[in-house]
């Protein structure tokens, strides 16, 4: 069978949760959460920006982790997870960059600045793109999977290094400090904290849902390809 019914059921449940959660998030973000004092309504983009950044990094970590696992175990499924996770990572790091720019324009009076966080995210985005291009240009075989895994490992070591080297570069810190677990006076109002955590949870569900969807798609594509090959053999 193409899919076993259990994972299909999990997928359906996740989909339903996601739908309800997204409606709730929209309500929370635009109606429930109070307007921020100094920034005004623009601040509401924070509830999409920060969870997207979480997911972008999560996608990257999962990609690197499964790449290591693939090189050790040589299980094709690990490679598939790494690939799909990188794809989702590209999507969310793009969202982070764009929402960040939309926020920065009215607040900083500029779309972009070479702050360590911004630069690191930008380079992370480049690394993801390079990873996906590498996969596209090496074909579907096992060798392509190995190349991609090696690149993912090097890239994952690169991300903290990039952040560090740009911090050394000089005082360019513009990005707001983390509001969670930050200093005493930097916390969020309880309503904002709730809205944020809720949005984060919904984004996590979205990540897992997209993962399951893409993995199923990839599996189906593989089965289809092997069927095609069989058919071609029979016709000859």
């Amino acid at each position, binding site marked *: 069978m193409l899919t076993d019914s259990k994972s299909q059921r999990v997928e359906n449940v996740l989909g339903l949760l996601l739908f309800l959660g997204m409606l709730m998030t929209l309500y929370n973000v635009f109606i429930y959460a109070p307007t921020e004092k100094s920034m005004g309504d623009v601040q509401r983009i924070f509830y999409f920006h920060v969870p997207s950044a979480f997911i972008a990094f999560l996608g990257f970590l999962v990609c690197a982790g499964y790449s290591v696992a693939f090189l050790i175990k040589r299980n094709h499924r690990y490679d598939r997870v790494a690939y799909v996770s990188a794809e989702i990572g590209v999507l969310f790091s793009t969202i982070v960059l764009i929402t960040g720019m939309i926020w920065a324009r009215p607040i900083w009076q500029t779309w972009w600045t070479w702050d360590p966080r911004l630069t690191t995210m930008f380079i992370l985005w480049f690394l993801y793109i390079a990873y996906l291009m590498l996969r596209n240009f090496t074909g579907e075989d096992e060798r392509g999977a190995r*190349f991609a895994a090696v690149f993912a490992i*090097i890239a994952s070591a690169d991300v903290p290094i990039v952040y560090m*080297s740009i911090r050394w*570069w000089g005082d360019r810190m513009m990005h707001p400090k983390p509001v969670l677990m930050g200093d005493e006076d930097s916390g969020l109002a309880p309503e904002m904290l709730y809205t944020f955590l809720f949005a984060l949870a919904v984004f996590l569900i979205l990540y897992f849902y997209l993962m399951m969807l893409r993995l199923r798609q990839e599996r189906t594509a593989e089965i289809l390809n092997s069927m095609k090959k069989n058919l071609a053999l029979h016709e000859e």
Partner: protein
Amino acid sequence: MTLVYKDLLSEFRSRETISSMLVFSMLVVAIFNFAFDPGSAYAQQAAPGILWVAFTFSGIIGLNRSFVHEVDKGCLHGLLLAPFEHGAIFFGKMLGNLIFISIVELLTLPLFAVFFNLQTLQGLPQLLVVILLTTLGFSAVGTLFSAISVNTKTREMMLPILFLPVVIPILLAAVNATAMIFDGKGWNDISDWLRLLAAFDLIFISLAYLTFGFVVEE
């Protein structure tokens, strides 16, 4: 070691890689002079950046060639069959690349100093150390990615896309250290950047060494 000798020998017989790298690197320096108003203060400020853009891009040309001969003529299979471990092949190729790129850099430097009217002589030892450390990092990352990109459909196109985002931290440290040297700063001022460069080199060399086996295995 033999591998380094082989690479050097075949290069000195043909001289094709080094000469094209050298011409390219000089052209980059020249082009940038036109891109900024020649001789203006602006070009002077951008000098460290221009130097490293020239070194990086000519380095990519050299790295691209590094595995082309091996793959095209099936030498890599021979190398892999030879009775030494894959790590030795990596270090051999890396050392060869290090020597090639360094030669090109050393030959570009005088021309650069003339074009940009630099008193490079006083900071020369510092600059040479920065160049050596940076080129070491470039060669480590570049050798690994060159072995990858030569096996992709697009070959030469792939290397810069993989290589550039990864070496950004190395490049940043190199440019900053170079800018300080051009400003007449001494060892003490650049020691932070040098240590950072050395740390990056260590990380990238060990990672590339560890993963190289996965790239070349059949």
